[in-house]
């Protein structure tokens, strides 16, 4: 079974995003970038499937600027077999990303697409579901447990109020939630090995996919700032303050 893992290069999760003063976006110059944490979880899960003998090949794919190849190298160091970079300087909407992934899937024919539930930059939580709809493959989102057997994937999903388990026929799209696994750190020897693994680069324009954005960003602004209040000395003071504030 071939597993395709789409990974996105995003602002590191420890960095607080700053809005540009001209309100055109978020300042990403000289900011630490990393693999989206949910994509790391997806890569880990795919590699574990390979280690269990369920998957035969793990292919990582990223759509982004040339630097996204670093993100793909991380995926390779974690255990992916090869990688594809679809190069573009355009910032794509989730629907465009899903369409590009569909084009890659037509070439690669994986039986499982294992991806993140959400990219922590746009916080869209959309690409996996869109891809599933475009391919007419079943989807299993927000996975906290996955088993693949007999042409089916059994997935436990994090839902409002608890957990739901569904079974989907392969090929399918599965999106990872936080508790699916804890991603490994790539070891130094594996980082060295990853440098020799295949990383194919395609130009976005070569795929013939309509990626025009339907959304115009009017402006990007800072949210209203909360300021620190006061420190109270005792629990009694706290209750008095809360009563005065009218919330008790």
């Amino acid at each position, binding site marked *: 079974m071939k597993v395709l893992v789409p990974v996105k290069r995003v602002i590191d999760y420890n960095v607080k995003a700053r809005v540009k003063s001209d309100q055109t976006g978020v300042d990403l110059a000289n900011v630490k970038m990393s693999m989206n944490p949910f994509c790391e979880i997806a890569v880990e899960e795919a590699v574990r499937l390979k280690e269990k003998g369920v998957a035969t090949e793990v292919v990582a794919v990223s759509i982004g600027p040339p630097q996204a190849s670093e993100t793909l190298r991380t995926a390779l160091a974690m255990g992916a077999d090869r990688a594809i970079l679809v190069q573009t300087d355009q910032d794509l909407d989730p629907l465009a990303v899903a369409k590009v992934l569909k084009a890659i899937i037509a070439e690669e024919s994986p039986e499982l697409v294992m991806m993140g539930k959400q990219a922590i*930059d746009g916080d869209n939580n959309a690409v996996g579901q869109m891809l599933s709809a475009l391919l007419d493959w079943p989807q299993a989102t927000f996975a906290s447990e996955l088993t693949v057997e007999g042409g089916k994937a059994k997935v436990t999903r994090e839902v409002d109020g608890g957990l739901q388990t569904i079974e989907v*026929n392969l090929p399918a799209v599965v999106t990872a939630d936080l508790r699916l696994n804890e991603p490994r750190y790539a070891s130094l020897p594996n980082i060295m090995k990853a440098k020799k693994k295949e990383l194919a680069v395609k130009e976005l324009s070569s795929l013939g996919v309509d990626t025009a954005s339907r959304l115009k960003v009017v402006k990007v602004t800072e949210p209203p700032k*909360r300021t620190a209040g006061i420190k109270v000395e005792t629990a009694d003071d706290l209750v008095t303050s809360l009563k005065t504030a009218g919330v008790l």
Partner: protein
Amino acid sequence: MAVLVIADHDNTTLKDNTHKVVTAALAMSGDVDVLVASASSATLGAAAAKIAGVRKILTADSAELGQGLAEAVGDLIVGLMGGYDAVLIPATSQGKNFAPRVAAKLDVAQISEVIEVVSADTFVRPIYAGNALETVQSADTKKVLTVRPTAFAAAAEGGSAPVEGVPPPPAPAKTHFVDQKIVKSARPDLGAAKIVVSGGRAMGSAEEFQKVIEPLADKLGAAVGASRAAVDAGYAPNDYQVGQTGKVVAPELYIAIGISGAIQHLAGMKDSKIIVAINKDGDAPIFQVADFGLVSDYKTAVPDLMNALTAAGI
């Protein structure tokens, strides 16, 4: 323009999120219908009909709709969109599961987690864990939005919209429901509660979490939340997680106990009216957003707080 709102429910009760999303829809158009897709919609449809300002209620029933299978709910909505210019879906884990399918099938963008309707085609949404707000204008002829319910006031009751049944979609061929573990709690819903008491990694164990956080929540009639660290460690169930990737809450009062205040946690609670932090580390980032901070070990602070509440007649 006509707008379809997708009702939020647990197959037995209609959730307040529905009323909140109706408010967002009414900011776009006066023609707002509500779709209730569930296992059995009779009482849910009747409840939705009471929402003021709604034109019509549509109901569709099937086992798969009740299970919330994304393919079923998505297909149902896509089939109805011929009559609508926009669909507004609560940004719950349920809604986020099927909304992008609808957008993809209609070949339009999805606008995720809308917190403000500027006009019928322009919306504000948080990005980067709420550290930036993006105003976007949509050129699509049909609009698909998920709406963050905490950002809107609930539409009032008092309506009497007609209820109309619509045929359910065929059962998805490639997806099967296996089972579900939904915890029924007597406490208020996390998303809708006036007060939320959340515990973090400091609790150290599930027993301690139950011993410290839950009695305080019960005393205040509050919902219980948790940080990711507390959930990951198994101190609290996954649906308690508040944050960028968990639930977003905006209660009147949010009490964070033994939570450091990571960006991702703040994303889920910084719109609360009053924030209280109890943490033994006076430099914890949570204090930068707290209206009232108590620098103290929770082991003494929480019992003291229980006593102070009792003394205050609560």
